[in-house]
């Protein structure tokens, strides 16, 4: 595909309570399979999707938190977490899964996918997008 567009997925819901988080993740993976320039934002309760240590075994539903670690394989390595949302929930980056990717252009060096950015910076990133999906 020659026409690569900048796609941004904005996640604002916590996992498991509703289907939005999983649906969003599936759509992200599908978009990435079409080799678009994908980034993902986690805002408001969306930051809860990235919490470490999720275990749904007692609920009998799929724990999809391990799937975020596959995003790097799909070349989805721009994950933006809004600083204000994280802080409002009493969380820091250490509470989130350490998601990494291997940089093809830098001798496969392992790098962090998650970037904590303040609202103003995230607003700029949103401005640069061609397509925005909100979940």
């Amino acid at each position, binding site marked *: 595909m020659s026409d690569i567009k900048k796609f941004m997925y904005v996640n604002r819901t916590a996992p498991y309570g509703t289907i939005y988080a999983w649906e969003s993740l599936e759509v992200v993976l599908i978009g990435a399979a079409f080799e678009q320039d994908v980034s993902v934002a986690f805002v408001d309760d969306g930051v809860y999707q990235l919490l470490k240590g999720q275990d749904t075994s007692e609920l009998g539903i799929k724990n999809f938190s*391990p*799937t975020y670690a596959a995003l790097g*394989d799909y070349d989805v390595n721009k994950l933006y977490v809004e600083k204000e949302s994280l802080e409002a929930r009493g969380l820091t980056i250490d509470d989130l899964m350490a998601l990494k990717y291997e940089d093809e252009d830098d001798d496969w060096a392992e790098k962090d996918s998650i970037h904590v950015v303040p609202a103003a910076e995230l607003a700029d990133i949103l401005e640069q997008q061609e397509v925005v999906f909100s979940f």
Partner: protein
Amino acid sequence: MGIDVGGKVLETDEEGYLANLNDWEPAVAEAMAKEDGTELGEFHWEVINFLREYYEEYQIAPAVRVLTKAIGKKLGKDKGNSKYLYELFPYGPGKQACKYAGLPKPTGCV
């Protein structure tokens, strides 16, 4: 729909993918391959086992592009290319190998 594995009928969806991940055993892959007129060899099993491990770790069946890259990294460049994988799984490494591995159809695979 279902598939007969040694006298036991396991539930599958309309495309022949196993309905319950936990029903899988190597005999399932062999029965599915037989229905397609294929016999599974060592190299098929490398890919099937790889897919099961990938699913175990990430809870998804990888897209073909991701599978190809990851196979190359794990099993060597000569295996991490679509020619090699399509020769093993002519119906598509994503679809066919995932099916034999008891996984759902890869996300984004239509």
